[in-house]
């Protein structure tokens, strides 16, 4: 690479290297974009989960971190023991009345931006447990970004939910400052998976017989 310490002459033309090699090098090494796009991209690919579980679903959540499923493929294996370092929280289990104030406190301790996945029927709606000690869905007091069905959902469906969360995070825009852009977070409308997957679901016409392994 050539360089010099000459004083800039008035009216001098900048030296341009228009060789194809240089053009290729620039193409391969320089990316241009807006700060908010880069921030969203970075956030979506380095989501740190909060190591938090209440019931059965946590075992399947833990399975999704383990070698067979390997959440590390999505850059999300850095489970954090404290809410202050985590980006998102998986409500993996039943939300109890005795536990709800604790869950609220833990959520409050997470720093913005933060997201919530409601894992399994109990966290979605109370599920099997319409009973005096259980809150009928964590969305009674927390904003939920993704709902997962299942009792408990398999690690595969956790990965599905997680990639959906990545899509949400990647699509959200936060302006670098209120001087540059609008205040608050710009969100896209969320698609119902039931609608999105309808065609795919209807395509399944043959089910495996339970008499074979």
């Amino acid at each position, binding site marked *: 690479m050539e360089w010099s310490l000459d004083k800039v002459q008035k009216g001098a033309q900048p030296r341009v290297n228009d060789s194809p090699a240089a053009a290729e090098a620039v193409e391969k090494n320089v990316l241009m974009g807006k700060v908010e796009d880069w921030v969203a991209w970075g956030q979506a690919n380095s989501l740190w989960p909060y190591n938090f579980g209440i019931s059965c679903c946590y075992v399947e959540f833990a399975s999704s971190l383990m070698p067979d499923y390997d959440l590390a493929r999505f850059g999300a294996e850095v489970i954090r023991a404290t809410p202050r370092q985590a980006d998102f929280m998986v409500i993996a289990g039943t939300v109890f009345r005795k536990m709800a104030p*604790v869950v609220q406190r833990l959520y409050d301790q997470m720093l913005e931006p933060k997201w919530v996945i409601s894992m399994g029927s109990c966290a979605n709606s109370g599920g099997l447990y319409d009973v005096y000690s259980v809150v*009928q869905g964590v969305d*009674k007091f927390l904003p939920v970004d993704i709902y997962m069905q299942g009792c408990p959902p398999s690690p595969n469906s956790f990965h599905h939910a997680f990639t959906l969360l990545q899509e949400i995070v990647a699509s959200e825009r936060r302006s670098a400052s209120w001087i540059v852009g609008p205040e608050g977070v710009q969100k896209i409308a969320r698609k119902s998976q039931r609608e999105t997957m309808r065609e795919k679901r209807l395509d399944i016409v043959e089910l495996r017989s339970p*008499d074979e392994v």
Partner: protein
Amino acid sequence: MNTEALDVTAMQQDLARSGAVIELFNKFGESLFTIQITADEIPTLWVSRAHSYGVLNFLRNNINQPYLLLYDLTAIDERHRDHREGQPSSEFTVLYHLISPSRNDDIRIKVALDDADLVLSTVSTLWRSANWYEREVWDMFGIVFEGHPNLHRILMPSTWKGHPLRKEHPCRATEMEDFNLTDEWVEEEQEALRFDPEKWGIETDTGKDTDYMYLNLGPNHPSAHGAFRVMMQLEGEEIINSVAEIGFHHRGAEKIGERQSWHSYIPYTDRVDYVAGVMNNLPYVLSLEKMAGIVVPERAKVIRIMLCELSRIMSHLLFYGTFAQDLGQMSPVLYMFIDREKGYKIIEAITGGRQHPSWFRIGGVAQDLPRGWDKMVAEFVDYLPKRLDHYNDMVMRNSIVKQRSKGLGSFTTEEGWDWAATGPMLRATGCDWDIRKKRPYAGYDQFEFEVPEGVNGDIYDRCAVRVEEMRQSIRIIKQCLDNMPEGPYKADHRLTTPPPKELAMQDIETLIQHFTTVTWGPVIPPGECVVPIEATKGMNGYYLISDGSTSSYRTRIRTPSFAHLQMVPFMGNGLMIADLIAIIASIDFVMADVDR
């Protein structure tokens, strides 16, 4: 009618002749007691409140071969019960289920109470384990135990109004006021969680020029294996005193039993010890089958045992991995989850489910084994022992693991009985109490296996016992594989649920029978029954009361983890915080198994 009456009298005679009952009659006089006949044939004696403590004290301390294990202590709200033939009048009944290990014999003592006067003297002075059980009865029924050292709520929040297992308490959340978590409520609940040592009778004066430090571990802590907390009084890193608090995982499973049909309650049992899968279904269906008089066909028995032992391996592998992780080893848990996935593949192929298959049925299992199951199981039993050898080098022979677990958190067999410890916790102390051997149920008498025992009852031995149990489970699964009987997978009995479909198409009678059993659910004859089993963590049993309807009148779930978790302060006091983490890991509890 006459023959039935004769039968009952004959049974009463039999009971009256059995060992401990005779000794009680000799000591206190026969007039003091009323005998009740139960489906499980455990001698059940009613005694008045004035004499209950004396009787229990005699059984615990003065009788030969004493009743060391307070297997269960619970209550029944009798106010709406129809079938109480031969029982003294009672509005609330407190019952004590005792076991004498040396006799290998059970006895049940019942005490009648009036709603207006729900007071009884504590037995926490006789069995240390009674402490939490009595707190639970107070919390759930509002029965006061006089002389109890700290009769506070245990499962419900301290701010709760009412006693959930009383019949007038609503069962469903949707029957109650809407849930609205306000900031004030959060503050109030957080304030209620503040540790007040004096409330627990803990001495706060150090007697020196220093103060104790108070540390709160939980309700959410990465090493706590679930939502519970330990409040510690510390001097430096040494735990002077501690209090365990539970109830953050109370799902009201016992109350739900009173609203579900007998059949539709099976999925709830899976979620009690949620890492042990179908193992949870077994005590429930066994208890029902005993009440209904269903004889399960051989093939169903062997299928059940095979899946139960597979579940035991799954549960113990999870324990093994997380135990090593809590002692600072990162990699074993990663390896062991690979094995667990292999196990899940088999469970999924057979039952269709992973963690909660809910696959056992009243009178058998849900369906026959799929073609090709034997190859999968054969591969697994061939594969796992080599992996266990590998883990033995990795974990059990590791010097740091040994240093952190040997000689710590230990207790003797005697203390184990006193705290109602069962399962690997108890066997680690050098005791062979495994009810698969002691009182074979569900066909375990047909299998060859050994009961692994520890020596010192410390953290290391508890792990070693479980590791060896996995090898024994593999041995049992191999025997299932080699000797799987042919035949039906569910019983030909009118209460088998769902009933065999072929019979439904014979005539109108069988069609009606099928229709009612499938829609309303089976009607189990009135009675009381419990069949304890050796679950992954210890003795688990469903004490069911049928009032002759389609759902249970009272479902009592006796779980091993509840008793074990009570021992945390006993094992941990005097040690370091890091040792407490190792002790918690070595108990192998699941919070749903504690709080239900």
